[in-house]
């Protein structure tokens, strides 16, 4: 393959030799002997050389299944690898997300990359270093204890050998044992430092690095013509008229799936637009409209009702009173600034290779294979960077659609990037949710019994190896039905992620009403249910604090036992200047806290708002976030994630809701679905709490929930009115204040 886009290693593997060993997790090989549980993803992909290779000429290749989404993961794993191997970080080349070459680490999502991939790399590298040290000891004829390593040079009293001089033989061609302890924090050179991101020089320099920048010889341009509504069947269409349009090479129809291939991009876009506009569709009214969605959810069937927690209070204290509230979160878009893209080439011999920015290259490849009726190993997905996705956007659909178009023109690479309207209107949104809370409190206003029930449609419809999860597969002549999604269970949960409050309430019950009917397409959006659940929990705790006449920070602290949570709340309050803050007309302050998934990073957010009573406009003046991600690998990377998540969450909370009527999605561009601008973005301060030696905790989704609740709490503080339905648009706030 001769791609323009080759310089950065994305295609460096062109001409690679297929590897002889299994890169997929194998549970089969091992019927007899139980094997040790290895750390992180090393447990499923156990071969050392599946992760790390000592190459010629002073280079080391690190192979990882997790992919760069703009979150800085590849920089962080390089830091870990360099430290554990004792080499300069510049020596590391990374291969990531190529299904033919890297460990299958599943999906890059859910804040699992650092705990699973980072931990695996750490232990694999430590073990590789130990093996190299042993080899050097043999070569130098000295005891291994007398050796030290500096940038890959193993140094003894009188002699030295470099990693690259050692005869490796088959030394790394074996499973990890997990018996080599990684380095203590005090000896880290890169871990704990804000090493600059590896991919930013290319991004500020305008070098090709995105899938959108890929140019292959002979490449043509595709575009999809979608129906006017999600539930629609193609009745009739004049394909010949479209074929006559300028530049059009081919019009592709498969059932109700329509696409075009053209010589130029604007020609493909224009032809697809005309195709969509002139085709006749049978359209069904399948939605409730956005205004009625919460009532629909509350009453929806079929639903599974799952009691995820029921802790009975032991004492017999009689509650002094009971408070109740109901919170609502609308559908949100991922809203990637760049619509999803892919470049696919269908080999006439019956295989397809797809350049994609999917978060799940392996499972998406499998789903596409099923859709095309190909064996799984005939679909190769190669990850390249895309615009930030924040969850399951249309990356996988673009990969599938490019493959469908490419199949119609074997041998010709097909480039596809959706239009803005195509992405806005068809991506799987973050689900709307309704959450009802009830608390019985004692005479001091402290919680005795806490109860939360939530209603939500699914948060996970990723491809997962199933063709029916690919949008276009449902419209083909032989359509694939969408599988009924499942909710995630403990400990991470999905719709009910963070639905269990971390507070130490004497009695606590939480119930999930999981609605599998999906009037609106939905899937994983940053934080899944955590954003809405934390919004509800932390708003309600605030309501209880006010009802008790207590300070919201003090009230939280007295209901919490987890010492790291206590510190996170205290640090945010202190950096904000909570105790020194003085109230001014129209101003308010709010605080909120969560530990993401109750297992990942801790984060508390405190912020100040100004509310214009006349217009209802809410302005966030400043925000402070505290964060504890365990042992920090890259402090600036963590700060960037926390601040970015906070700003995105301000945008969701203040402005965002997907509009739809009974038939179609109405939010088709940034005018219909505005997001936070530069002028609306407040200064943000992030206070990092480091825990050297503690496990790495995922960070990317930690600030979404606390931010939403802190904002609503601050608006209450400013106005005395509690807003429980999002977003807090000027219209809604003005109406609430009237």
């Amino acid at each position: 393959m001769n791609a323009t886009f080759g310089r950065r290693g994305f295609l460096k593997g062109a001409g690679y030799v297929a590897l002889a060993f299994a890169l997929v997790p194998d549970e089969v090989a091992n019927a007899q002997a139980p094997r040790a549980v290895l750390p992180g993803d090393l447990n499923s992909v156990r071969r050392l050389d599946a992760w790390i290779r000592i190459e010629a000429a002073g280079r080391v290749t690190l192979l990882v299944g997790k992919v760069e989404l703009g979150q800085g993961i590849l920089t962080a794993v390089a830091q870990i690898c360099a430290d554990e191997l004792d080499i300069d970080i510049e020596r590391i080349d990374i291969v990531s997300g190529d299904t033919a070459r890297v460990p299958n680490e599943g999906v890059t999502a859910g804040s699992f990359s650092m705990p699973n991939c980072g931990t695996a790399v750490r232990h694999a590298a430590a073990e590789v270093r130990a093996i190299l040290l042993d080899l050097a000891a043999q070569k130098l004829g000295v005891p291994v204890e007398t050796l030290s390593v500096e940038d890959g040079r193993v140094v003894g009293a009188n002699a030295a050998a470099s990693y690259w001089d050692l005869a490796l033989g088959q030394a790394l061609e074996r499973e990890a044992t997990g018996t080599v302890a990684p380095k203590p924090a005090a000896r880290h050179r890169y871990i704990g430092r804000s090493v600059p991101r590896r991919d930013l020089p290319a991004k500020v320099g305008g070098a090709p690095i995105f899938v959108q920048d890929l140019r292959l010889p002979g490449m043509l341009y595709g575009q999809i013509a979608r129906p006017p509504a999600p539930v629609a069947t193609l009745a009739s269409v004049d394909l010949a008229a479209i074929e006559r349009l300028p530049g059009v090479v081919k019009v592709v129809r498969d059932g109700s799936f329509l696409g075009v291939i053209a010589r130029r991009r604007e020609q493909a876009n224009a032809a697809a637009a005309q195709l969509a506009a002139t085709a006749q569709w049978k359209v069904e009214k399948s939605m409730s409209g956005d205004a009625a969605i919460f009532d629909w959810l509350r009453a929806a069937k079929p639903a599974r009702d799952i009691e995820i927690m029921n802790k009975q209070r032991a004492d017999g204290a009689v509650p002094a009173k009971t408070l109740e509230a109901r919170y609502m979160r609308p559908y949100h878009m991922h809203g990637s600034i760049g619509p999803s893209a892919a470049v696919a080439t269908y080999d006439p011999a019956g295989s397809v290779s797809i350049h994609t920015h999917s978060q799940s290259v392996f499972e998406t490849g499998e789903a596409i294979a099923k859709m095309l009726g190909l064996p799984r190993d005939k679909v190769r997905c190669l990850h390249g960077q895309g615009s930030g996705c924040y969850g399951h956007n249309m990356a996988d659909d673009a990969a599938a659609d490019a493959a469908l178009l490419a199949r119609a023109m074997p041998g010709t690479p097909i480039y596809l990037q959706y239009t803005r309207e195509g992405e806005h209107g068809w991506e799987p949104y973050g689900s709307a949710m309704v959450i009802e809370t009830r608390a019985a409190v004692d005479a001091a206003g402290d919680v005795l019994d806490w109860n939360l029930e939530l209603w939500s449609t699914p948060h996970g419809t990723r491809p997962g190896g199933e063709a029916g999860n690919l949008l276009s597969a449902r419209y083909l002549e032989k359509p694939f039905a969408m599988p009924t999604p499942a909710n995630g269970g403990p400990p991470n949960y999905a719709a009910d992620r963070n639905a269990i409050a971390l507070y130490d309430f004497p009695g606590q019950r939480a119930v999930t009403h999981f609605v599998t009917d999906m009037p609106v397409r939905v899937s994983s959006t940053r934080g899944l249910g955590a954003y809405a659940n934390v919004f509800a929990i932390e708003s309600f705790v605030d309501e209880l604090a006010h009802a008790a006449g207590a300070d919201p920070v003090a009230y939280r602290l007295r209901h919490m036992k987890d010492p790291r949570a206590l510190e996170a709340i205290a640090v945010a309050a202190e950096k904000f200047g909570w105790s020194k803050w003085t109230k001014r007309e129209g101003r308010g302050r709010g605080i909120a806290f969560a530990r993401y998934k109750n297992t990942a990073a801790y984060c508390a957010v405190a912020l100040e708002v100004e509310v214009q009573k006349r217009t209802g406009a809410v302005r966030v003046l400043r925000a402070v976030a505290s964060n504890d991600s365990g042992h920090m690998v890259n402090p600036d990377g963590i700060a960037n994630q926390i601040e970015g998540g906070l700003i995105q969450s301000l945008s969701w909370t203040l402005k965002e809701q997907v509009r739809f009527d009974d038939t179609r999605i109405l939010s088709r561009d940034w005018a219909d679905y505005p997001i936070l601008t530069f002028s609306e973005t407040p200064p943000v301060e992030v206070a990092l709490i480091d825990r050297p030696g503690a496990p790495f905790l995922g960070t990317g989704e930690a600030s979404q929930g606390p931010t939403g609740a802190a904002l609503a709490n601050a608006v209450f503080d400013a106005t005395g009115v509690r807003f429980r339905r999002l977003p807090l648009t000027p219209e809604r706030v003005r109406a609430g204040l009237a």
Partner: protein
Amino acid sequence: MVAFKLNGKDVRADVPDDAPLLFVLAHDLDAFGPKYGCGRAQCGACTVLVDGLPTRACVTQAKAAAGRSVTTLAGLGTDGKPGRLQQAFLTEQAAQCGYCTSGMILQAHALLERQPNPSERDVREALDGNLCRCGTQNRVVRAVLRAAQEG
């Protein structure tokens, strides 16, 4: 056929009359900086400079640039040799996914040309038409102010 100066060099492209400048740059001339974001002048991802003025290349026909001078990221510096503003973006690590970055840098470059010492508010206002979904706005503002100071 359209001819103009791209980052100081004469270029020509044999393209249809109505071809958008964005696609001509990105697909005919391999200028990888400007990105398609919305095609409707709403997001700024496609921003380039035409005779020094920030221009939404998605809604500008290539023929409108005929005989003019077009600047993309590569005109300010490269990944090996970043220009002042690009270096400031690196120093501040002012990106996450970086899809919006090209448009941000060119929009900010035009501001600094016009106003070498902008206030923070000036920077925010100048960039209000550039959307970032990753939430790097404050880092971008710091980078622009840093470049101004160092200039």
